[in-house]
């Protein structure tokens, strides 16, 4: 840039930052504009996920085959994302599985502290393949010191009259001694 025959591009050097706290916004210490959008959606679920949710209402975990890729998929979908073909043949899976990975969570979405941490993770559901194949859920009836990858777990269902066709019809997964 020293040479005078070059076009100069000018820019501010090292612009400094300023500390800001959320109380500064609340107390209107800084000028700001506030808006609460009124935005709501109601998503259609589609045929495959609807059938899965109906299954949950009946206390069943359903899977569907992709025969071409030799997959038994859960949560089910109407097409296989690997071969791009349609899926076919519904199967009822067991409500047991293995912890694939987990985390012990101490914060809520706004980063407030939760005293009793939430155990959350991914369960590989028995019978579905190839591993890992399953979904995310809570863990219960175990302490944060007991939980580990590879642990066997079983679904704890809500009572039948409280189920509404949602992933939360399973309350959580608990330790499971059987095979």
């Amino acid at each position, binding site marked *: 840039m020293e040479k005078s025959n070059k076009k100069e591009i000018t820019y501010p050097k090292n612009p400094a930052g300023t500390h800001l706290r959320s109380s500064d916004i609340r107390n209107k210490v800084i000028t700001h*504009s506030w*808006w609460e*959008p*009124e*935005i*709501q*959606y*109601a*998503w*259609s*679920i*589609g*045929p495959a*996920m609807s059938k899965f949710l109906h299954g949950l209402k009946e206390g069943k975990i359903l899977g569907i085959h992709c025969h071409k890729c030799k997959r038994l998929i859960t949560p089910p*979908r*109407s*097409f296989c*994302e*690997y*071969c*791009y073909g349609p899926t076919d043949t519904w199967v009822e899976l067991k409500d047991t599985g293995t912890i694939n990975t987990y985390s012990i969570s101490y914060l809520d979405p706004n980063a407030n502290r939760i005293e009793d941490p939430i155990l959350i993770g991914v369960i590989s559901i028995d019978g579905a393949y190839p591993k890992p194949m399953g979904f995310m859920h809570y863990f219960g009836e175990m302490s944060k010191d007991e939980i580990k990858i590879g642990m066997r777990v079983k679904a704890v269902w809500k009572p039948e009259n409280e189920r509404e066709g949602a992933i939360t019809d399973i309350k959580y997964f608990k330790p499971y001694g059987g095979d």
Partner: protein
Amino acid sequence: MTRVCVIGIGHTDFNCMTPDVNWKDIMYEACQKAYADASIDPRKDITSFITCAEDYWEGFSIFDEFVPDQIGAVLRPCCTVCGDGIYGLGTAYMQIQSGLMDVVSIEAHSKVSDLLTYGDVMLHAFDPIYDRPVSGPVERPNYSGLPSYPPENPKPLAGKTDETERVHPYFLAGLEMQHYLRNTNTTEEDCAMIAVKNKKNAFLNPYADYEANITVDHVMKSEYCFKPLKKLDISPNVDGAICFVLANEKITRELGIEPIYLSGFGWCSETPWLSTRGMEAEYAKKSAAMAYKMAGIVNPRKEINIAEIDDRFTYKELQHLEAIGLARKGEAKELLREGALEIKGSIPINSSGGSLGVGNSLEATGLQKSLEIVTQLRGHAGKRQIPDVKVGLAQSWREIPSGSGAVAIFTRG
């Protein structure tokens, strides 16, 4: 440099409600049809995937993450363009012409029936400091003395009490229409003729959802929504998905496909300052100029055979026609009155039925326009086929409150 060709198109039917399928299903259907149309396997042959989507329409932040499975893009280069489908075509064009990609899939869709608060999402696009506060909640006392929500008029699922009414953001179209009518000596009846024409054209289009046999009188007697804008001047929303596959010329020839070239495109954004920007669709003028230059078009009125012009509001078709140079300023209404814009006219506009006849498919609008042009260029438009079509233009606008738009020009080989 290679030329860029359209080798596949696919689309769902367009419907005002689609409660039976979710957004993944309609994307999958459109893409599957486009890949079959091009006789390609997306998992082997497509090198890049693009979806055009706006997070707020979809209801997900980072919609990008919900895209790859249903378009065949798992573990492939894939990106989301936050804009109209023609921006996606442009991105694909650049990827192919630079030699980076050979075959590119572009998808856009609308699942607007999942969105319960369309007007509020649109209002959320207004400037939060200057424009939203004065177009948002209107502080007004409830004079009637009656309960806010009597049984015959219950509180809407989403919406404020009547102490804080909101103006639907389409009022901006009312402002612009007022300006356009006065500036060009166009009448409300002229605008009504656009609705009549496009909804009539839609009868000939099997996938259109808002075909209607109406007269100028029907439109004129429909209720004022944002005077001078009336209910039938407004294109109603629709669900649907469209997919395009573009490829370089070599692959197109190898597949034995008669090329239809994407020969030019352009895009432009005006400032978001609503009150200081012009109301003459400068974005359309500039994007068309860019597209004409790229396609080597010197006299658009003579060289372009058909066009699909953004008609989300009736006056927009006339305004855009003038902006992109298919009519002189104030001349669009003359062409309309002469019948030049009809399917059998000298420059047919919106033979598909346009957004007034097909429905407003949000970010898919540009691809819906492009779909009609390619279908006409292929000679596959059935009862609405226009003879000897060689060059067609698709134009879209990113709707209220934007001053953004894009143009694509397609040419038969």
